[in-house]
C-alpha cells in the first residue's frame, strides 16, 4: 500500500455504498482484511443500509395512484391555472418566516398555518354538518329540492348574500334540498346533492371573513374530503366521501358556476 493515499473515512463510506472505483476497492478490501475491528463496523453499516432498503422497498413497488399521474396533474393545471397562482400567493403570504421563499407548493400542511385557521374552522364545521345530515334518513334536508327557488331565496336572506344552488347534473348529482345551520353565531347554508348511486355531497356556504378570495384548500377528516375556498365574500366548502382527485372537478365546477353567475368578470390575476 506504500505510495497510496491512506484509507480514509470517505473510502469506508463509499465501500458501504458500493461506490469505490475497482482499483481503490481492492486497496480498501486489503485494509479491511488487515483490520477486523474496522471490517466488523463496515459490515454492520452495510447490513443496516440493506435493512433500510428492504424496509422501505414496498412503497416503491405500489402502483402509482391516479392523482399522481403526470398527465392528470398537467391537465388540472391547464384547466385551472389561476388556482395554482393563488395557492402560491397564499402559501407565501402564510409564511411566518419570510426567508422561506420556496413555499410555492401550497396547499399541503396549509390547514395548520395560522392564516388558514378561519378557513379550517369553516371546513371543520362543514364536514361536521356533512357527517350529521348526509347519513340522516328521514330528514336530511329542511326544504326539498323541488322547492329550489324558495330554498335559495330563504337561505340567501338568512346568510345575507345572494346564493345559488349550482347545477351538478353534468357530474351526475341532483339537488335534494338544503337547510339552515348555525356557524359560530352566524347563519350558514347547506345544500345537499345525491347521485344515482345514492352517494351524497354537500355544499356549505356562509359569509366569509376578511379575505375577499382564497385558493382551494383541501382537508380530509376520517374519510370525508372537503375543498374550501372564499370567493366574493362567501366561504364555500364542498364535502363528500370521495378522494381528492374525484372531488376536485366538482369543486371546480361549482367555483366556475358562481364565477359566471357573479357576472362582472372579476379581474383576478
Amino acid at each position, binding site marked *: 500500500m506504500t505510495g497510496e493515499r491512506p484509507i480514509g*473515512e*470517505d473510502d*469506508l*463510506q*463509499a465501500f*458501504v*455504498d458500493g*461506490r469505490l472505483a475497482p482499483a481503490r476497492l481492492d486497496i480498501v478490501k486489503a485494509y479491511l482484511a488487515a483490520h477486523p475491528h474496522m471490517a466488523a*463496523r463496515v459490515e*454492520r*453499516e452495510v447490513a*443496516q*443500509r440493506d*435493512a*433500510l*432498503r*428492504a*424496509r*422501505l*422497498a414496498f*412503497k*416503491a*413497488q*405500489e402502483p*402509482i*395512484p391516479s*392523482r*399522481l*399521474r*403526470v*398527465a392528470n*396533474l*398537467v391537465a388540472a*393545471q391547464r384547466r385551472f391555472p389561476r388556482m*395554482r397562482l393563488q395557492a402560491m400567493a397564499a402559501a407565501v403570504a*402564510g*409564511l*411566518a*418566516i419570510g426567508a*422561506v421563499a*420556496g*413555499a*410555492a*407548493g*401550497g*396547499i*399541503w*400542511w*396549509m390547514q*395548520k*398555518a*395560522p392564516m388558514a385557521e378561519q378557513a379550517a374552522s369553516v371546513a371543520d364545521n362543514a364536514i361536521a354538518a356533512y357527517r350529521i345530515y348526509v347519513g340522516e334518513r328521514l330528514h336530511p334536508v329542511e326544504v326539498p329540492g323541488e322547492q329550489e327557488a324558495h330554498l335559495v331565496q330563504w337561505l340567501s336572506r338568512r346568510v345575507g348574500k345572494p346564493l345559488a344552488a349550482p347545477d351538478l347534473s353534468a357530474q351526475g348529482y341532483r339537488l335534494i334540498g338544503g337547510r339552515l345551520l348555525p356557524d359560530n353565531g352566524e347563519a350558514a347554508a347547506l345544500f345537499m346533492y345525491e347521485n344515482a348511486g345514492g352517494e351524497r355531497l354537500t355544499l356549505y356556504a356562509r359569509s366569509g371573513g376578511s379575505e375577499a378570495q382564497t385558493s382551494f384548500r383541501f382537508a*380530509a377528516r376520517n374519510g370525508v374530503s372537503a375543498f374550501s375556498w372564499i370567493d366574493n365574500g362567501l366561504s364555500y366548502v364542498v364535502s363528500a366521501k370521495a378522494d381528492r382527485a374525484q372531488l376536485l372537478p366538482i369543486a371546480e365546477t361549482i367555483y366556475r358556476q358562481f364565477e359566471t353567475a357573479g357576472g362582472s368578470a372579476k379581474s383576478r390575476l
Partner: protein
Amino acid sequence: MDEIASLIEPQIPALRRYAWALLRDDEAADDLVQDTLERAIARWAQRRRDGDLRAWLFAIQRNLFLNGVRQRKARGAHLGDEALNDIEAPGPGPDGHAGLRDVLLGLDALPEEQRSLLLLVGVEDLSYEQAAQVLDIPLGTVMSRLSRARARLREFMENGRTAALRRVK
C-alpha cells in the same frame, strides 16, 4: 407534455418512498409528492436542461417537506434552521413489519439532515454529487455527514435497545 411525463413518471416510485420515509403516513406522503410534481410541472420550463433531473425533483420535495414542518412548528415563534434537526420523526406506525421495524426507529433517532442523507444515498441510490445538490451542501460535507449518520445509526441499533423497546407498542 409527453416529455414531462416520460421523464418524471419513472421517478415517482422513489419520490413516494422518500416522502413516506419522512412522513410515515400514506396520504400525507402522497400529498407531498403531488405538491412536488405540481411544482415541477409548473417550473418545468425554468429548470436547467443540463441539470440533474433526479436531484432537482428530490430537492423540490425535501424543501416542500421542510417548509411544511416549519409552518407547522412556527405559529408565530421564530424558528432557526437548527431547530429543524430537533424534528421528531413520525414513528413507524402500527403496521406489521415487526421484524424490520427497528431500523426505522434507528432512522428516527437521527436529525432530519442525516435522515434525509441516509435515505437519498442509501435507499434512493443518489450519487454523492446528487445528494450534495439536494441538500445544498458541499461534497465534503456529504461525506462527513454520511459518516456521522451511519455511526449514530449503528450506535442506536447497538445500544439504543431499551429506548427502542419502550417505543414499540
